[in-house]
Structure formats: C-alpha cells, structure tokens
C-alpha cells in the first residue's frame, strides 16, 4: 500500500494557482523530501493531504483512504507539524502536549521521553518559548501518538544545527521503526542528508521525482577552467548544459563526453582545471532554470 498517493491533485484559490495536476506517490517506509522554492505549492499540497483545504479537482489517498472522506481516520495515524502552526499560549508545554494526547486516547507515555530528547522544559508557558523551542514542541506533538506517517512542513526552520541533527537522528530512528516520513523544505542540503527520494515542485507543478542516491551519482559534472591568457572563450560542445564566464575563468555544467571536452580544451592554454560532483543545490538550480526556460 502506498503511504501517499495523489491523482491529478489541483488546487486553485479563486484564480490564484496553488497546485496543478500533482501526481505523487510515497511508498510506505520511506523518507520522502518535497522540495521547491517558496510559493511553489508545498504547503498547499500538505494542507490538502490533511484536509484543511479541499482540492479543486483530483483526489488524494493516504494509506488507501480518501483524504476528504476519511480524514478523521487518517489523522489517527498521521502526525503533522505545520510551518506556521500556533500553540495555545496560555498552556504550559506539558498542558499542550496532554491536550494533544487527549485526542488520541490520552496516551502520554512518550511525553517525558520526547521532552528529554529535545531538552524541552515541560513547565514553561508556551508564550515564553523561543521560535526554536516552539518548533521542538511542535515536533513532539506530532510524534506523541506514534504515527505511521509523519507530515512535516519545513520542520527545520528555526532549529539550530545541533537540534536539527537531533531531529534528524530521531526521524531516522522513527523511520527504522517503520514510520513513513514526508517532509517539505526549500533547503536542499537538508533533504540530501535525510531523504531516500525527493520530489521537486515548481509553480504548482511536479517537475521530477528522483532518488537522492541517483541524483547525486548524476551524470552532471561541475567543470571550472581558468585560462592562461585570462580570456575565457565560449565553448560549443554537446552536453554543456550551462556555461558562465567569471573573471577570466569558465564554469560549465556538463553531462557530455569528458574525452571530447578534454580534446576541445587541449586547443587552449589552461592555467587550472577543476572537475567535481555538483552539489544537489546546483543540480536543482539547473532543474529550475531548465524548466523555467521551457
């Protein structure tokens, strides 16, 4: 059974585009990254999955259940952390978490354990918490009832690197226990570290779904050449996806035949030559540009 499936999921807010014909499949047991720039439709997708908003057309299923019809059943097994979720200011952290637990049959067994892991003071009032601490409380309330699927909207924003690492460790552990994790981010290096697969969304449309391992293996190479005479020529060769001159050196994004590139470069006096695996960031920037130009 798929953890998440969407079928031509479309959401317009009046005339404003949310998402268009989104077809997404998330396998049970994987950590799935959902990546795109701000305003791409990540939050819209997530809110539709949790039935906060209703699709304009298309449909979606979580563990085979329809997100609109069976939303209460779905939310029994889903933990959710919203990007802008608010918590009741008048409550203490413990009060809030107990309130959350009371909807799931009052199981508070994990409360103390999770508070320990994230170093959250249970007696503090919500309003007195910093942004990062609020985020931690948000993560705890999402994990409290041992959900089968975790949906996290920008979970790392506001967390310092140490807490981020703790969160990722915990998410990996949850995942080992069988929890499927779906999380959105606009920071790719995060996704790279945690996810098995990643979907790229731009302007409401799904651009591509890739395995992180494959993406990183990728055929693309970053090439930087600095020329002896300080003048960078314009190279014409199949496989040059992108070239940019920068102060006498040339930067190529290349997925053609390296031998041909070397033969071509042999005609020039070269000072230095670097070839390296591009970061995911660069791969995605390339995706965005390519798709944007289309």
């Amino acid at each position, binding site marked *: 059974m798929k953890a998440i499936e969407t079928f031509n999921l479309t959401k317009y*807010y009046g005339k404003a585009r949310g998402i268009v014909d989104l077809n997404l499949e998330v396998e049970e047991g994987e950590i799935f990254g959902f990546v795109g720039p701000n305003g791409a439709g990540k939050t819209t997708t997530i*809110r539709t999955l*949790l*039935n*906060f*908003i*209703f699709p304009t057309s298309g449909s979606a299923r979580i563990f085979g259940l329809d997100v609109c019809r069976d*939303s*209460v*059943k779905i*939310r*029994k097994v*889903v*933990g*959710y952390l*919203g990007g*802008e*979720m*608010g*918590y*009741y*200011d*008048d409550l203490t952290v413990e009060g809030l978490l107990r*309130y*959350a637990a*009371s*909807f*799931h049959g009052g199981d508070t067994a994990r409360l103390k354990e999770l508070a320990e892991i994230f170093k959250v003071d249970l007696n503090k009032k919500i309003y007195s918490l910093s942004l990062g601490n609020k985020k931690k409380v948000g993560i705890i*309330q*999402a994990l409290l009832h041992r959900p089968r699927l975790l949906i996290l909207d920008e979970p790392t924003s506001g967390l310092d690197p140490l807490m981020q690492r703790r969160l990722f460790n915990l998410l990996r552990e949850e995942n080992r226990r069988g929890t499927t994790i779906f999380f959105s981010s606009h920071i790719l290096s995060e996704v790279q570290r945690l996810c098995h697969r990643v979907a790229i969304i731009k302007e409401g449309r799904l651009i591509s779904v890739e395995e992180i391992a494959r993406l990183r293996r990728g055929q693309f190479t970053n090439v930087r050449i600095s020329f002896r005479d300080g003048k960078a020529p314009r190279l014409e060769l199949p496989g040059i996806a992108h070239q940019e001159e920068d102060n006498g050196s040339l930067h190529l994004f290349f997925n053609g035949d390296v031998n041909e590139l070397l033969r071509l470069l042999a005609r020039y006096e070269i000072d230095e030559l670097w070839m390296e695996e591009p970061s995911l960031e660069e791969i995605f920037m390339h995706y965005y540009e390519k798709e944007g130009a289309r």
Partner: protein
Amino acid sequence: MKAVLWRELRVNGRSLLIWGAILMFLTFFTMSAFGAFEFEGQLDQYVELFPESMRKVFGLDRLSLSEPLGYYGTEVYIMVLLFGSIYAAILGAGLMAKEEEEKTIEFLLARPVSRAQILAGKLLALLVYVFLFNVLIGLSALAAFKSYVSSDYSRDALLGLLAAPFLAHLAFASFGFLLAFFFTRRRSAMPTSIGLVLAFYFCDVLATLSEKMEFLGYLTPFHYVNAADIVMNGQVGGINILVLLGASAAAMGASYILYRRRDILI
C-alpha cells in the same frame, strides 16, 4: 469533542466571572434603589412628564416603576438583556476566531476529530456559559427581590423575566458564532458582533416608535423578549421561545454547513 469542550470551559471562565460579577452587581445595586422609591408612588408622576415615545421605548407606557416587576422590567432587565447579549455575541464570535487568529486551528484540525465534533464542543461550551451567566444574574436578582421587595408580585412573571434573557443571549451567541466565519480575525469579528447587537436593539426601538417600522420588530431577538409583554402575560410566549430557539439552531446549523467545506488557511 469532549477535549474541546473541556478546554473551552477552562479558558473562558475568567470572562464569565468578570461579566457575571458586573451584571450581578448592577442587578443587585439597581434593585436596592427600589426600596427607596416603593412607597412614594410619585415616581410614576414624574414618568408622566417624559415624552410618550420615551415611555414607549422603556416600556413605561405599560409598566409602573412603583411595582417590583415594573421596576425590574424597565431598570434592570434592559441592562441584563443588552450587556448580556454583547457578552454572548463576543464570546460566540471569539470561539472559532481565536483558533484562526492564534493559528492553533491547524493544531486542532490535525487531531482525529471531525469539524462537526469541534463545532459541537465549542457550541456546547457556549451553551454552558450563556446558561451559567444567566444563573448568576438570576441568583442576584432573586437575592435582591428577597432583600428589597416587600410588596406582592407574580413569581411566574419574574421567572419569565429571568429566563427570557437566556433565550436572547443564546440567539446572539449563535449569531456571533456564525458571524465569526465571515471574519477570520477576532479583531474584526468582535466589534462586528457588538455592532450586530446594537443594530438589532436599534431596530427594536424603531419598531416600538413607528408603526411603519413595526415589521422590523419581528426581525430582532429583542422583540421576542419584551419585558412589558412578559409582565402583562405573566410568562414568555411559547411562540417567542420557539422563534428564538429556532433562530439559534438555524445560526448553529448554518455555521456547520459553512464550516464543513471551508478552506482553513492561516
């Protein structure tokens, strides 16, 4: 639903105590002055000097200030009715609006509860509050009658005067609750619901004054809980009760229909 109900019951206790205490005090204090007027009987002569329209608006054309129920119906009742309606409307408007304003609605909706259950929990809390509020005022009024009234009065009519505001408050609480769905920010939902109460009161006054405007009366909850009518009939009219309960139920039902398919965006 139970979790939502319990939380609402805890959170809104303070505002109930404040509003309740103020109105208990006003009720008791205003009634305490009755003892001073009771045997003079001159008060009605002064009232005769008021313009007729004014007497009509306050029900003084049919009620006498020198009688306990007349005094209560014209001096105390209007405060309870008007301030209580404002309290109820604000409370009703705030219940959902505050969840959206403080962005806690996503937290709530991420729990395994249906929207209907959330609304039911909130509405039940609203009902409890409006009821308790009226119980507090009722106790204060009964205590004041016991302390300051020695002449005879109809106990049934007094019960009518104590029960009727509950119905009006319930209607305004439901209207406020419904109204909040058209304003996502409490900042705008609250003043609007106060405005609604005052507008309805104004309609009631207009309907009393001008025969041409009489139709307006039927549109306002205040019309159905007129103090003079209750004192004259010795009870609240059965149809009036039905109209107010029906209006409350309609507003609650409309909130449910609106909320069922609403996009929650914060």
